[in-house]
C-alpha cells in the first residue's frame, strides 16, 4: 500500500510519542515503588506490603496520560490518512470499475460488465447458429 510522505511522518512521530509515553509510564512505576517503599519498610524484612507494587496513592501523572491519548489518536489519523485504496462501496464506482477493468472480479477483467448475463442469455443459446459461424470462420482461415 502506497503511503504519502506527510502521513508517513505522522505515523513515525506518533509512534515515537507512544513509545516515549510507554517508557515514561514504566519509569514512573519504577520510581514510585522505589520512592515509596523505603520509608514504609525501614527494616526491609517484616513488611506487610510486598515491595514492587505501587501504593494506591501514586497514580500516573496527567502528562503521561495525555501523551498516550494524543499519540494514539495521531497514530490512528496517520494510518487512516495514509492513502491506501479503499474498495468501492457504491454501485456506480464498482460497476464503473468492472466496466473499465480497474476492479477485477475473481482476479480477472470481467467482460460484459456486472449484468452481462442478461444480454448473453446462456439459457437461450442458439448452438446451431454459433456452429455455423464457426464452420464459416474455419473456411476463411483455410
Amino acid at each position, binding site marked *: 500500500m502506497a503511503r504519502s510522505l506527510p502521513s508517513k511522518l505522522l505515523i513515525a512521530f506518533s509512534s515515537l510519542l507512544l513509545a516515549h509515553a510507554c517508557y515514561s509510564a514504566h519509569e514512573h512505576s519504577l520510581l514510585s515503588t522505589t520512592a515509596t517503599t523505603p520509608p514504609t519498610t525501614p527494616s526491609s524484612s517484616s513488611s506487610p506490603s510486598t515491595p514492587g507494587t505501587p501504593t494506591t496513592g501514586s497514580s500516573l501523572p496527567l502528562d503521561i496520560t495525555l501523551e498516550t491519548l494524543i499519540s494514539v489518536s495521531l497514530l490512528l489519523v496517520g494510518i487512516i490518512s495514509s492513502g491506501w485504496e479503499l474498495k468501492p462501496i457504491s454501485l456506480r464506482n464498482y460497476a464503473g470499475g468492472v*466496466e*473499465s477493468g480497474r476492479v477485477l472480479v475473481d482476479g480477472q477483467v470481467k467482460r460484459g460488465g456486472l449484468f452481462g448475463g442478461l444480454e448473453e*442469455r446462456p439459457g437461450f443459446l442458439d448452438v*446451431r447458429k454459433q*456452429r455455423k*459461424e464457426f464452420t464459416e470462420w474455419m473456411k476463411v482461415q483455410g
Partner: protein
Amino acid sequence: MSVTSLLNRFKSASANPTPSESLALSQLAPSILNLTITDSPEQWALYESLLLSTLRTGDDTSARLILQRLSDRFGNDNARIMALQGIYDEATATNNAQLEEVLKNYGDVLKDDPTNIPVAKRRITLLHHLSKKSEAISALATLVDLNPTDAESWSQLAQYYFELSMYSQAIFSLEEVLLILPNAYNIHARLGEINYVAAEAIGNSAGKEVVEKLEASLKWYLRSVELCDGYLRGYYGIKTVTAKLLESKISASHRTIPEEKVNKLNSAATVQLHDIVTGSEKGKKGFAGYDLAEVAAAKELLETTP
C-alpha cells in the same frame, strides 16, 4: 493446469465467444477429460462449459463423452442434463426433419412437466431458430407468465420483439427486467437504444412523437451512466441522442428538455468519450476492460461529430 484455473479461462470468455476463442477453449478438451473426476462442483461446471465449446467447434466425439459422464453423474431425468442433451441433439442434427424430431421431444418432455424451465428455453430457442418467430414469442410469453421473476426470459422476449420491430412491446419487456434487477445499467442503455431506434423508425422526423422518443432515450442513457461510472455505451448513446436532438429539423416547440441542457450533456459526453478513447489507446492500466471494437466505434463517432 488445475480445475479452477481452467474454469477461469472458460468464465473469462462470454456466452457468445469469437470463433478463435471457441477453438482455443475446445482444444482444452483432452486435458480436461484426462483429469481424474473429483466430483467437485467446479469440475462439473467445467464439463458443462466444455460441452458447449466442443459443440460450437464440431468436436462431437468429445461432446458425446462429456455428456455421457454428466448424465452418469446426475441422471438422465435431471432438467439441466435434459437441456444439455437437447443442445447436443440440436447441434448434431443434419437436416430439418431431425430438428423437428428434437422439437417434438421437447414438446413431449414439457407435456409431462411444464415447469422444466431449461427445456422450455431450449424449445423456444429452437422454434426461433426454425423461423417460427410468432410461435417462439407466444411460448416465451407463456414461460414468463409461469415464471415472472426470470429476468433472462424477459430480456430474451424483448430481443424477439425487437427483431420484429415491435418496439413498445420490447420496451415493456425490458422494463419488467428492471423491476427484477433495478440496477442493471446495461438494460437501461438497451432501453435507450430501443427508444432511439423507435424514433428513427417513425420516419417524418419533426413530429412530436419523435422528440418524445428521443427524450425518453436520453433519459434512459443518463440513468445508465448514473448507475455505472465511465460506461462507454451510455456516453456513446448520450452523444448520439443529443446530437440528434440538436439537429435543426427537430422543432424546439415539442421539446421538454431545454436546449442549453442538451448542449451541456453533449459536451459532457464528448469529454468522457475522449477520456476513455485516449486512455484505452495509450493502454493505461485502468482502461483494460473496455472492448476494443467499442472504443474504435467511439473514436469514429468523435471524429465525425466534433
